[in-house]
Every structure is written in structure tokens, then in C-alpha cells.
């Protein structure tokens, strides 16, 4: 913990040295390279007038909704596909064809379909995060040791018992990793979606920083996204550790 804080402080120090140093030597136009002080004062102002919190909440809601829909779909379909070979053979080529297309390439399509409101953002995040989570869940379920299934079957487990009492707990580590990856990706693409077709959200906040030439606001937006991502990742890691602690230590 201490070394982590130290590493972050060092990063901050490096930024301060470069930014304030630039003020003196003027290697770059000082306006283009915001200092920590400027970012702090912009952040304080944005907190005061509520814009930061409002935009943060907007983005967060979109992420949670889109990610939630995708997680439920990926869990259900991923488990079914892994358990049922015919379904897997049908789904696999489709998913493997669509998956490599960079999601942002489809963003305009989502705006055309769903307009500029919340739906397009939520749908786009759901679409983007579904694929890696589906692949992760299906792989996790497929990799469940057949011996565990045999052991349970010889104790009288029915097919439903096997799924509920063996497959899901055995695949849980893989499922949690898949959810973490999905959430990371959601954070990634929300910014892109809000750059293009949004009037609120952290992506929009950053874009406004560009439009109105306010570099400290851009840096603020990026840092807030970083904090949000670290926070949620830490949360999921804690869940993961609590679930797996006793089991796979």
C-alpha cells in the first residue's frame, strides 16, 4: 500500500516538475501544458458549480446500465453456449466474425438507430462489452474439470444440479475476470461515444475542454475517468478475493 502511494506521488511530482519547469524554460507554449495547480482549480470550480458531478453521474449511469445488460446476456448465453455444443457451433462463427470489428466503427450506426439520447450510449456499451465477456464466460465454463462433473453425477446430481452446484461455482474465477475486463472496456468506449454524440458525460466534458480551448479541463476529465476505473477495479478485485480467498489461495 505504501509503495503504491509512493509511486503515485512520484508520478505527480514528475508531472509537476515538467509542467512548472516548462513555465520557466518555455519549451512549449505554457497554455498547452496544464500544471497540477491549474487542474486542481478547474476541478474545484467544476465541483462547485456541479458540472463535474452531473457529468460523472451521467457517464456512470450509462456504463452501469450498458454493462449490466451485457453482463446478464454474456452470462446466460456464454453458459448455454459452453454447455450446449449445437448452440455453440451456431453462435461461434457469428461472434468470431463480429467480434474483431472495432466497436467504434459501429458507433455511428448506433447513433442512427437510437438517436442522441441515452439509449444509443447504453446500447453501444452493451454491444461492445458483450463480446469479451461472452468469450470469457464460455471459456471458463468449457474449462470446468469433467472430473468434478463426474464426481457430482455419481452423488446423484441432475443436469440442473450440475449447472447450479458445479459448473457455476467452478467457473466463478473466470466469470469474475470476464466481468472485470468488460467493465474496463465500458469505461474505454463511453468516452468515444460521448465525444461524438452526446451533450453530457465525461467524454462530452473533455470534448468541451477542446472546443473552448481549456486544456486543464481535458486533463481533469481524463483523471476523473482514471479514478473511476481504479475504484471499480479495486471493488471487483475485493469481491474476487473474498470469493476465491478460501478456495484457490
Amino acid at each position, binding site marked *: 500500500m505504501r509503495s503504491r502511494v509512493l509511486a503515485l506521488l512520484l508520478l505527480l511530482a514528475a508531472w509537476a516538475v515538467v509542467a512548472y519547469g516548462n513555465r520557466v524554460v518555455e519549451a512549449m507554449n505554457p497554455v498547452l501544458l496544464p500544471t497540477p495547480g491549474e487542474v486542481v482549480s478547474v476541478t474545484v470550480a467544476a465541483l462547485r458549480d456541479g458540472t463535474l458531478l452531473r457529468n460523472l453521474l451521467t457517464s456512470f449511469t450509462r456504463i452501469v446500465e450498458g454493462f449490466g445488460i451485457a453482463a446478464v446476456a454474456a452470462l446466460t448465453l456464454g453458459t448455454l453456449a459452453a454447455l450446449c455444443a449445437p448452440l455453440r457451433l451456431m453462435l461461434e462463427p457469428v461472434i468470431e466474425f463480429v467480434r474483431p470489428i472495432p466497436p467504434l466503427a459501429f458507433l455511428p450506426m448506433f447513433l442512427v438507430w437510437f438517436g442522441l439520447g441515452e439509449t444509443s450510449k447504453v446500447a453501444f456499451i452493451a454491444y461492445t462489452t458483450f463480446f469479451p465477456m461472452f468469450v470469457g464466460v464460455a471459456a471458463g465454463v468449457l474449462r470446468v474439470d469433467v472430473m468434478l462433473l*463426474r*464426481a*457430482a*453425477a455419481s*452423488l446423484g446430481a441432475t443436469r440442473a444440479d450440475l449447472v447450479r*452446484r*458445479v459448473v457455476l461455482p467452478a467457473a466463478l474465477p473466470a466469470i469474475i475476470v470476464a466481468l472485470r475486463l468488460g467493465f474496463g472496456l465500458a469505461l474505454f468506449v463511453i468516452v468515444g461515444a460521448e465525444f461524438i454524440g452526446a451533450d453530457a458525460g465525461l467524454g462530452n466534458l473533455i470534448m468541451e475542454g477542446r472546443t473552448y480551448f481549456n486544456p486543464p479541463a481535458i486533463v481533469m476529465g481524463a483523471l476523473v475517468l482514471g479514478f473511476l476505473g481504479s475504484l471499480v477495479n479495486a471493488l471487483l478485485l475485493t469481491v474476487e478475493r473474498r470469493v476465491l480467498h478460501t478456495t484457490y489461495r
Partner: protein
Amino acid sequence: MMAKIQIAGVSKAFGNGVPALAGIDLDVAARELVCLLGPSGCGKSTLLNIVAGFLAPTTGRVLVDGTPVTGPGADRGVVFQEYVLFPWLTVAGNVEFGPTLTGVPTEERRRTAARYLEMVGLRAHAEKFPVQLSGGMKQRVAIARALANSPSIILMDEPFGALDAQTREILQDELSKIQRVEHKTIIFVTHSIREAVYLGDRVVVMTSAPGCIKQVFDIKLPDVRDRFAPDFTQYEAEITRLVKEEVAKVHE
């Protein structure tokens, strides 16, 4: 009286067409402990997997109490060489797994688990997780798990094969003791001649590739056996000679 387990004309060929088992006929009586003995690759585990219902025979069939086996079932408990405990459940949770499936009330389940954990000497470890146990302890849990589900048959696939020699003998003693109380019908696969003579009411010696039954020995020794008694070592010597012939054939 009808045999508890009837193995009738069972053969098995895998995808590559190489026969693993050919024409196995074997009846196992209720409360009998039969050891399947043979060199590695003789198909003894395959035969056990067929009786367990994990594999379907290519020809022939297995009857349990006169009913053909079509899949795994709670009437046939299985103990695997690699223990195969559920790592996310505690020791008690593992032992209660079978009773939980059939909806046995919590109180009764607890009592059953406690009784069998006591029997294998692990009562004090009930709340531990499998990762915290040694190999011998894990296999004790697996045996308790099978017993707690009260199957009439227990199939054991080289259960002590991964354990060190000392632990192995201790567990053989424990199994022998448990069998004198529980009277299960047991098929016990092993490649240890000593183990087979120590535990078996009968020892079935198998030939390799494809696996057939070479000879069946009735072990006429007392229930509590002495590994150093003259008649014990005599069985051991006799069976060793037979198995050596088989192993030699494989190397020819």
C-alpha cells in the same frame, strides 16, 4: 441369489478402434469387495468407468440389482485417484453434497457428515477447505463423501495410488475397518498386488491390451489381515507370478 453387479460380455473400443476391453464377464455379490488388478493400460479403470456409468460399453451391459446401467447414479458412489473434491466447499460441505441434492434436512445432513468425518478421523477439520488438506486427508474426505450419500456400491479407482507408502497402508487399514462396519459392495481398482490381497474378498487379475480376465483368486484370509502372515505372502507370490507374465507380454 442374483449378483449385486453383473458385468456381462462387456467390451470397449475407443475412437481409434483399438480395443481396450474384450468380453468381460464378472459377477460381484452384495457386500463383497472385489479388487481389479492388472498392469497399467489393461483397461481396469475403463471397466470401472463403465460400471460407474461414465462410459458406455461398445458391446455387452452392466446390471445393478438386475437393472441396466445407463449413466452415473447415487446408488454407485465413486472414489477417484485424484480425490476430485469440490474446492469451493468446506470439508463438511463436500461430505454433505450428496444429501443436499436429495433435500435431506440440514440437521440430519450435519449429523450424517459428522458421523462419517468421525469415521475417517477428520471431525476436527470439518470447516477447512480442500486446499488446506494433505493428499491422505483429501482422500479420506472423498471416502466420507461417498459413504454419506449411502450408496449400496462404491467404486474406487486406484484411490490410494497418489499417496506415499505409509499413508497408503494407513488408509488401507481404515478402509478395511470401515468395510467391516458398512458392508458396501466395492469394486477396487489397483495395480498394487499387496493392496489387492490385503483388501479383496476376491482379486481379479486382468490381462492387457485388450483387457480380459485372466484369473480370479478367492482370498481365503481372515477379515483382519496380517501383511506378514505366511498365507498372505503366498497369495502375493502366486499373483505376482501371474502378473509378471502379463507385464512380460507387453514388453515383448
